């Protein structure tokens, strides 16, 4: 009887009194279950709390063809501040939430999806921390996976073919590998330039930055943002598409402040030096990653370019990125191939 009353009570008040558990965001340790954060009104349906705002990026990181839904949460009465050429500086207690999934059949969204994992970046008092929660088979709860997890997943692609993947939920250290900047952890996606695009919110269609201002979760953004292009947009310049793709897929490690800075190969958007972009750059510690090629990029010769060789490979000792990929991103490989083919041989 008492239970029934409790349930009723919860039902009646859940939509009104429900709020994100900000204490857990700030806590010293991560809770075992994703639902404890109360980011979602309905976890398995991935229906977010109203202050948990969905967003998209212009160009995204390839993660074995998985789909991603992103949300940002900024606590009441606090705002993230704009930082030039970098991610917003989010206040303590903020959270970036990203759920990875495969649709059962890419041709028919109504057939549902398989939730894989929900990755969290939590803005603690001293900085960001990263952790991932893997969804159970019943798809009604996601559990903390400090050491990562392997999920053998499959889906039907747009061509009607069944695709299989040994999907890896990253462990906590692997989160840091990509999200490292100097000695601390940083988000990668939510730079003003990366979210400068329209999104269909429940209230209507808005530019995301405008919407974030309206929701008072950011303090400002400049009018004259130079944004990356969507690398899939074939009407855009091939050079912009390639640089945009390389920036978001490689530039977090391959930059002067990233984990791969010892290589001298820098693929972040602001890099302008040919040699550091890989043009006629010899490998340093590449080993068999060179595939018998002499340079990272040989203009006009994609098949002699180490960069493309490592994008195509599925061998863990060769492939790039080092983590988070088990399949080849065929469409991007074609685009980078076209890009290298038309690069002028100075």
């Amino acid at each position, binding site marked *: 009887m008492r239970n029934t009353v409790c349930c009723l009570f919860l039902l009646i008040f859940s939509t009104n009194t429900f709020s994100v558990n900000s204490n857990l965001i700030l806590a010293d340790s991560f809770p075992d279950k994703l639902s404890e954060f109360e980011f979602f009104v309905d976890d398995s349906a991935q229906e977010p709390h109203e202050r948990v705002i969905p967003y998209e990026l212009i160009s995204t990181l390839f993660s074995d063809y998985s789909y991603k839904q992103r949300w940002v949460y900024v606590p009441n009465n606090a705002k993230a501040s704009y930082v030039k050429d970098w991610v917003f500086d989010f206040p303590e207690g903020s959270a970036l939430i990203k759920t990875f999934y495969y649709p059962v059949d890419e041709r028919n969204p109504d057939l549902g999806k398989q939730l894989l994992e929900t990755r969290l970046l939590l803005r603690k008092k001293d900085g960001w921390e990263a952790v991932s929660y893997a969804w159970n088979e019943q798809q009604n709860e996601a559990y903390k996976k400090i050491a990562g997890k392997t999920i053998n997943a499959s889906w039907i692609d747009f061509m009607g073919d069944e695709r299989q993947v040994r999907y890896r939920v990253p462990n906590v*250290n692997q989160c*840091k590998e990509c999200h490292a900047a100097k000695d601390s952890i940083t988000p990668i996606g939510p730079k003003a330039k990366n979210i400068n695009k329209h999104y269909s919110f429940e209230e209507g269609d808005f530019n995301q930055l405008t919407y974030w201002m309206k929701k008072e979760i950011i303090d400002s953004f400049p009018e004259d943002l130079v944004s990356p292009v969507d690398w899939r947009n074939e009407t855009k310049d091939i050079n912009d598409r390639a640089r945009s793709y390389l920036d978001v897929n490689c530039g977090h490690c391959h930059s002067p402040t990233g984990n791969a*800075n010892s290589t001298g190969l820098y693929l972040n958007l602001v890099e302008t030096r040919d040699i550091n972009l890989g043009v006629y*750059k010899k*490998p340093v510690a*590449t080993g068999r990653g060179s595939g018998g090629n002499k340079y990272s990029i040989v203009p006009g010769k994609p098949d002699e370019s180490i960069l493309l060789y490592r994008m195509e490979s599925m061998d863990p*000792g060769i492939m790039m990125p080092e983590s988070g990929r088990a399949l080849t991103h065929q469409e991007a490989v074609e685009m980078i191939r076209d890009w290298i083919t038309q690069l002028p041989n100075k």
Partner: protein
Amino acid sequence: MKRILFFSVPLLVALNLFAKEVYIDPGPNAQERLQEALILIEEGDTLIIKSGYYKFEDGLSLDVDNVIVKGEGIDSTILDFKNQQSGAQGLLVTSDKVTLSDFSILDAKGDALKVIGAKGINMINLKTEWTGGPKSTNGAYGFYPVESEDVLIDGCVAIGASDAGIYVGQSKNIIVRNSVAQYNVAGIEIENSYYADVYNNLASHNTGGILVFDLPDLPQQGGHHIRVFDNKSIDNDTDNFAPEGNIVGEVPRGTGIIIMANSDVEIFDNLMSGNGTVNLSIVSYGDETDDPNYYPHPKNIQVHGNTYGPSGFDPDIETGDLAKALFEISGGNMPDIFWDGIVPLSQIIFGQPDNEKLIIVEEDASFLTIKPIKYMLGFSDPTNTNKDDFKGEISPLKEINIETF
């Protein structure tokens, strides 16, 4: 009172009253248990990997400062990555003041043990091996600390790396000692690094035994202050099996020690013998570079008191340009010590400053260098084989002290 406080606080830290030992046994889910332990251990803890044969499908990583991870001996605690499906190395360490000891890493798909940006890393009594013999499909490096400081590699064994068995890159304050490197392309390689002591090691059956290199277009370059002494670099007779594109792919089979483009290097009291191409080679960086901050020539190299056994009896003229050029210019009479003689144009004209000169003080060693002017003017014999022209006073480099913890 103040005095007591002053002493007791560091003491507490040193003793670490909360330090604990964590044990990992072989068995089901060893991968997940070990990786979780590597994430959850806390500063001051010791993680002990019990003896046994561990098979892993994913790379391991450690990012906790001030911990010890040890096995129960290189023949007892074996971490086997033959079936590795993900991760670019066997074990990746990204934290400071870490001690690793007494285990083996076998058949990693990429590098066996990589350490990035550590301030303080001890690698003691460890082994890295590719068990199928020298193959270009082996991983690049066995031991691979990079961008690190206070690096100790002591009593380790490195076998079968397709680049270097022991490779220290872009680091500072380094000791590599009492270790064995065999059947690698390069046995031991110190690259773009500052302040290293490499001593009492055995490098044999590699393509090249010990390499001291500096390369352009990297965040840290200008490698200097390297002492290589009391090593045996002998019988380096494995064909170069590096995948093309890698700089070590240029190293000819049968090279004892090569110094390339470093400053302040002292090579003494080593045994170099049984190296079919050349025992000791001192060369400039041979490729074009536009890097304005890079100095491509060796500078202030001191060679003394080494013992030279047979060399040059089987020069590898197929690999790179070095052995072929040396073979031609020496008329097949390969020297123990070779210097390519390449200096900046201004030094060709005005001579080398004394503090940049090559100094050789050896009893029994044959020598050959190229005289650039004679070479450029097409003299029939542009060489100089008189090592006494390079005699001088040795100014010993300082011993390297690394911070212990």
